[in-house]
């Protein structure tokens, strides 16, 4: 028993080490510059909103709201696109007994092992041909090609008992009807998990916006913050305030839905 508590103490200590840097960002963003440069305790002695006022209040210099809007728009669109096309594909591939369906699925799943970096240059040229560089479409449409969601939903759909579908078909449901009225409601937890993981992945993407976007007002928050850090490297207060703005939405989502997020990530290992 004593040993178990010793182990728990170590784990608790590790947990503190993991969240400390995040807490540090949030606490330090409220410190005045003098306190930031001379570390004297975790909590701000003289809390201030001046960094936030500057970061949020000078849109012509730092378009944080613009970046926030871009991030929300891009991540929501990616999520919607991925859920729509992946759910349709996964349903058909797992339930409709398509000729050659198994081979198509195997090909899709195999591409999960393709590292994203090998696609960077060719997709860049493809987007340039389409005239999508420096537009949100560059980050939205290619994201729909990822195989993870199809695989993830396929695992779910194939476990649904055949009788449910047959019952709906006898009641006169078309295939689209079965999909819409039977499969989608059943898959709601899986869709929610996939949706959250997709949203967060898109929100936190760094390399994509860095390569495919050019103009400052088109940036997403992560790239905006990185740009910020390069041009205001001395003014940590401002960069930290911008980081808080960038991180807060994701942290809220995570704290509300952590169970689903962590379960979703855990499942990826067991199903492989």
């Amino acid at each position, binding site marked *: 028993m004593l040993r178990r508590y010793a182990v728990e103490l170590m784990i608790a200590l*590790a947990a503190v080490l993991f969240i400390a840097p995040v807490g540090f960002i949030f606490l330090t963003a409220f410190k005045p510059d003098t306190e930031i440069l001379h570390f004297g305790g975790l909590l701000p002695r003289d809390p201030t909103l001046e960094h936030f006022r500057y970061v949020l209040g000078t849109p012509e210099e730092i378009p944080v709201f613009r970046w926030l809007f871009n991030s929300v728009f891009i991540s929501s669109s990616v999520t919607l696109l991925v859920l729509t096309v992946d759910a349709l594909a996964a349903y058909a591939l797992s339930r409709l007994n398509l000729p050659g369906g198994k081979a198509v699925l195997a090909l899709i799943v195999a591409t999960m092992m393709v590292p994203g970096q090998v696609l960077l240059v060719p997709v860049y040229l*493809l987007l340039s041909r389409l005239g999508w560089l420096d537009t949100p479409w560059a980050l939205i*449409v290619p994201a729909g090609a990822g195989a993870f969601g199809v695989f993830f939903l396929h695992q779910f759909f194939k476990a649904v008992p055949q009788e449910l579908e047959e019952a709906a078909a006898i009641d006169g449901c078309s295939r689209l009807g079965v999909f819409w009225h039977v499969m989608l409601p059943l898959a709601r937890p899986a869709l929610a998990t996939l949706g959250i993981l997709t949203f967060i992945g898109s929100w936190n993407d760094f390399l994509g916006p860095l390569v495919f976007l050019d103009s400052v007002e088109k940036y997403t928050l992560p790239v905006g913050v990185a740009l910020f850090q390069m041009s205001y490297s001395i003014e940590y207060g401002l960069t930290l305030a911008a980081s808080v703005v960038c991180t807060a939405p994701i942290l809220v989502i995570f704290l509300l839905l952590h169970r689903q997020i962590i379960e979703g990530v855990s499942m990826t290992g067991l199903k492989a």
Partner: protein
Amino acid sequence: MISRAATVATLPATETPSAIRARTRHRRFLGRLGGYVFVLPYLTLFVVFLIFPLFYGLWLSGMRYELVSPQPPRFIGAGNYLEALRDPAFWNALGATVLFVVAVVPVTLVLALALAAGLEAVISSRRQSFYRLCIFLPTMITISVGGLVWRWFFNGEFGLFNALLEPLGVKVPWLTSPGWAMASIVLMTLWWTLGTPTVILVAGLKQIPRSYLEAAAVDGAGAVRRFFWVTLPLLRPVLLFVAVIQVIGGFQVFGQTFIITRGGPEQATRVLMQYIYETSFNMYRLGYGAAMSWLLFVIIVVVSLAQVRLLRQR
């Protein structure tokens, strides 16, 4: 069922049963093929933005394709690959990447396993999921924010780490010495990425039947022996999966070095992805960038296959 019987009844009597069967089979095949309508939206994106670019990249890697050059792109065969083999910057970047993978992957596996086993030992499931949440939280932070705060922690003059070490009279050149810079990147990466392997291994541990461990305990095996002789062998498939994912991710390391060290000092942390990025999008030598991407791809595939070969259940 009823509808098919009706169809048969209305067929002309001259048709042989086998012809009818062939026709219904053909019709059913067409009906099943119709299901591809559902797959079409995804398949279009899949082909256009994944399959096509994969091979387009391979073709590009055989081209001298320079966006800023006045010369039109032309085919040069293996030219880009030969250039990479002679390019000291490529070898330096490959060396830095391999060093990173070799340092980060084993440590990640050991620590994730230790954290997962530790988490499973926590009796209260509420506290267990709270600790798990804390360990997973950094994974949710975007690299520009995480990199920013760690760069500041590592700062030699007014960084947190050296401030904490000051009473001991130690001053570590976290980001200014080549050796320490890579160690710093590894340390930051562990903080940022340990969450995913840990939660996957926790899920793997939960799948191991308790009866196995109890049987081993009855046979007199202590906790350490149970872990190494029962838990670890049963966890092997999950561990293999985690190891492969870690290696694939490790070879593509980019954000950490790009934000924290910018590849320095003395290019000690200029990893392959950063060199590919700079070649392709700062110097606009897309053919050479594509060739190095394919080299990296081949390296990743070979290493992953070797891992599966070596670690798979014998």
